[in-house]
């Protein structure tokens, strides 16, 4: 409906527009007036339940012969990994591609290659997924292989050792990168070792994983009762459902969505700079932040607007100042992790070593500024809202992005009309809401400030700055005695 009607409107506009263009002289001094905002076209979908209890969502999209398939599992390594075996979820996901009872790893890889596709198995913090994209005619054949991987993995012991060795080398390599070091140290210092958000994969946790662990993890985790299957693209809903029922017939019932319960985070300490020495580093990686709210917070829309003004876009305050005006960086930003628990607020970027002190001063200035010291202008508020709401139509452009949009509704427990209501929710955010959430969540008195850089260059100037006390830590975030 909308598409045809919309095309006619544009065509009429175009014809009248051309006549006008031929006559008018061009005035470049003002931006052209944009036409009416295009109507938001949220794709339609059908929802049903499979015989084994898994939920199914199908959305047809026929402009290209493509299909995007995702099997999402609610819950991730934060729910399922034992602290002493961090990395088990990731290892199990990798082991799913190592062969089935009837296809060894190489035969599995060859079969998928001949179908022109790759199947990704990933388990993240709070969800896991088996996903692929394929040419529509190959969907049923690919689906059969995916079902085999899901139900009949063989988990060969030698594959476990190979994957373990690869991960151990990757851990060593991560210690050569300032950004990778910051990504390990920052969450550990914000949440502590007792909270899943603060736990890292280490040599010891990788060494502890056994094949029995993998077998047990797979059995407990991949259950239809906590699964959603999404299919988007050049399929017909009824046919897709029949094909999936058939392919997943051997996947036995059972399982339920996990309860997302996290331990309380210890009361935050007064703002502290944690300096990690990376001798000779040309740049320092900054990670500045604290615990944030879960995705379910009623402050979500105000936070989105606030963060867009602060650090979500190129011309946001942080990047406009620290990159564009001062030239200290190639790019800085800020974000909230959201999720089911208190996902972190984090600001940062890579800063040229010699300007680490000056950059920290600017970060602090902007974090305080958004809390009210620097008033939010009308233009900042309207640009942030426009950027957020007018981005939405473009997110339904590809089969993969439509699939992601469907999965998000399910994993975050959002209402069916979430996308239709989004613009109104953003529009309702007032300036005082933005300042209120900034004061609540950008807690400048209790920041973890991780700086990974060349200590010999940056420590003296950072001390002279006096923004916060400095604690020297090693590359895992453990205190180093002076």
């Amino acid at each position: 409906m909308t598409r045809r009607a919309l095309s006619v409107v544009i065509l009429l506009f175009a014809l009248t527009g051309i006549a006008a263009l031929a006559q008018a002289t061009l005035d470049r001094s003002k931006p052209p007036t944009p036409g009416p905002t295009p109507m938001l076209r949220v794709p339609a979908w059908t929802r049903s339940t499979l015989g084994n209890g898994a939920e199914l969502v199908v959305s047809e999209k026929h402009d290209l012969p493509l299909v995007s398939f995702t099997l999402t599992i609610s819950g991730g390594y934060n729910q399922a990994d034992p602290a002493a075996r961090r990395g088990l979820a990731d290892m199990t996901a990798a082991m799913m591609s190592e062969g089935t009872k009837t296809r060894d790893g190489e035969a599995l890889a060859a079969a998928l290659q001949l179908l022109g596709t790759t199947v990704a198995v990933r388990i993240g913090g709070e969800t896991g997924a088996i996903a692929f994209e394929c040419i529509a005619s190959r969907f049923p054949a690919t689906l059969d292989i995916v079902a085999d991987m899901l139900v009949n993995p063989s988990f060969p012991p030698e594959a476990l050792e190979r994957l373990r060795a690869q991960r151990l080398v990757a851990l060593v390599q991560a210690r050569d990168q300032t950004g990778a070091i910051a990504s390990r140290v920052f969450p550990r210092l914000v949440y502590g070792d007792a909270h899943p958000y603060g736990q890292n994969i280490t040599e010891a946790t990788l060494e502890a994983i056994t094949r029995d662990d993998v077998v047990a993890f797979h059995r407990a985790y991949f259950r239809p009762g906590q699964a959603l299957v999404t299919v988007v693209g050049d399929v017909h809903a009824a046919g897709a459902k029949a094909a999936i029922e058939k392919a997943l017939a051997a996947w036995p019932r059972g399982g339920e969505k996990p309860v997302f319960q996290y331990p309380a985070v210890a009361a935050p300490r007064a703002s502290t700079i944690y300096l990690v020495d990376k001798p000779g580093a040309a740049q320092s990686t900054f990670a500045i932040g604290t615990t944030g709210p879960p995705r379910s917070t009623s402050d979500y829309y105000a936070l989105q607007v606030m963060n867009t003004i602060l650090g979500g876009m190129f011309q946001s305050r942080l990047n406009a100042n620290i990159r564009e005006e001062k030239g200290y960086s190639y790019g800085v930003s800020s974000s909230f992790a959201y999720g089911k628990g208190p996902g972190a607020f984090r600001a940062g970027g890579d800063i040229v070593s010699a300007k680490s002190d000056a950059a920290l001063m600017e970060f602090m200035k902007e974090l305080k500024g958004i809390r009210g010291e620097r008033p939010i202008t009308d233009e900042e508020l309207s640009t942030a809202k426009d950027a957020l709401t007018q981005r939405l139509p473009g997110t339904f452009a590809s089969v993969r992005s439509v699939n992601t949009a469907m999965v998000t509704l399910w994993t975050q427990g959002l209402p069916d009309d979430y996308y239709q209501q989004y613009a109104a929710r953003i529009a309702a955010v007032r300036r005082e809401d933005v300042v209120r959430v900034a004061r609540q969540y950008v807690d400048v008195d209790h920041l973890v400030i991780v700086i990974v850089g060349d200590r010999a260059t940056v420590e003296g100037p950072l001390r002279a700055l006096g923004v916060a006390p400095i604690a020297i830590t090693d590359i895992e975030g453990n205190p180093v005695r002076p």
Partner: protein
Amino acid sequence: MVAQSAPSRSSTLRIPFEGYALPNGLRVVLAPNHASPTVAVTVWYHVGSKNEAAGKTGFAHLFEHVMFTGSGHVPYGVHDRLTEGVGGSNNGTTSRDRTTYYETVPSNYLETALWLESDRMGFLLDTLDVQKLNAQRDIVKNERRQRMDNQPYGLVGEIISNTLYPAGHPYSWDVIGSMADLTAASETDVKDFFRLYYAPGNAIVSIAGDFQPQQAKALVARYFGAFPRGAAIVRPAAPPVTRDRETRLVYEDRVQVPRLVIVWPTVGRGSDDRFALGVLDAITAGPRTTRLTKALVYDRQLATTVGTSQDSDENAGEWRLTITPRPGVPLTDLESAADGILDTLKAEGPTAEEIQRATAGLELDFVNDLESNLGRSMRLADGLGYENDAGSFQTEYQRMMAVTQADVKRVANKYLTKGRVVLSVVPIGKVEMAAKPSESTPYRRTEQ
């Protein structure tokens, strides 16, 4: 206007588009696609780092940054506000051969995007001053630090370019340039560069997405039609290189795990051998069925990762092999193991099933690349710019699909020869960890 129609041929790569040129030489390609109410505008200039002179490296890329600092009628910041600030995005990229700028915007902002792009093509110098240049220079130096100097193995690309091509060859320096040259770039350099290369006769405007072609044609003519064509450009000669002997280097980096990189010179986009080289790449490393990955990572477990790549720039190309060892495995052993496998492949050629596996995924790759309006507009602009055919992606697809076992055997023997560069990246102070350390020369960085 000269219209040229280009009907599509492949069964699934059906991307409707049309191309034409304005009287001032500006080439235009339009690809309507109403799947979502967005539009992508790509402006492609035929200038890259190969157009720089020695001592002025990094200039084309520095200039790309200058193009975002505002122009005659567009104050600084407005470009971002009218793209990202209305739910879209923008960026620019510089390669050895071309510089590309793009915006994706809601479809009602098409005219705005053309206003922005035409203003910087026509009026950039009206507002350019030395302060703007200096600010971007600092940012580019930070980009270099972030991408290369502060990145483990980050200098490999630069070392390979410096070594594979003879001194003075336009591909012998890295796109980002040297710190010293970036410092030396002057306001006059910027202005001369702009006047020569940023003219309609050297540019392509490619639009893909939700628009009506008649309206887009009128807008392109209105915003770009009055600019003068620009002077004739002498393109630098950047011939493919051949090497008759091996060059061995060892580079000490702030890394804990060594890495072996072997690079062979190949061909540019003008040679059809690139298609067989692409298939050779796909059967050599990647999935566990590929020759090197299967042998080194799976069967013999000497390596944690193996990667290969075939890249053809406009005039010359490179086939690269990168191997990360398992702890304790000497790079010398890895090199000889890899050479043994490649020798077998050269002697026997690939199997029919290997060719089939390598090409089976191509259709999905091509369709994925063309699914987004941005991917479409960039692909069409590249084809028009390099092959004078916006639809060359279809020819590329067909030629890749037509590659035979004999083709792959032939190019493997022709290009994977002893005339190659072997680079060992080792931890500082550990040159003995290099592959054949006694035959490898330490790579000394000139001050970048």
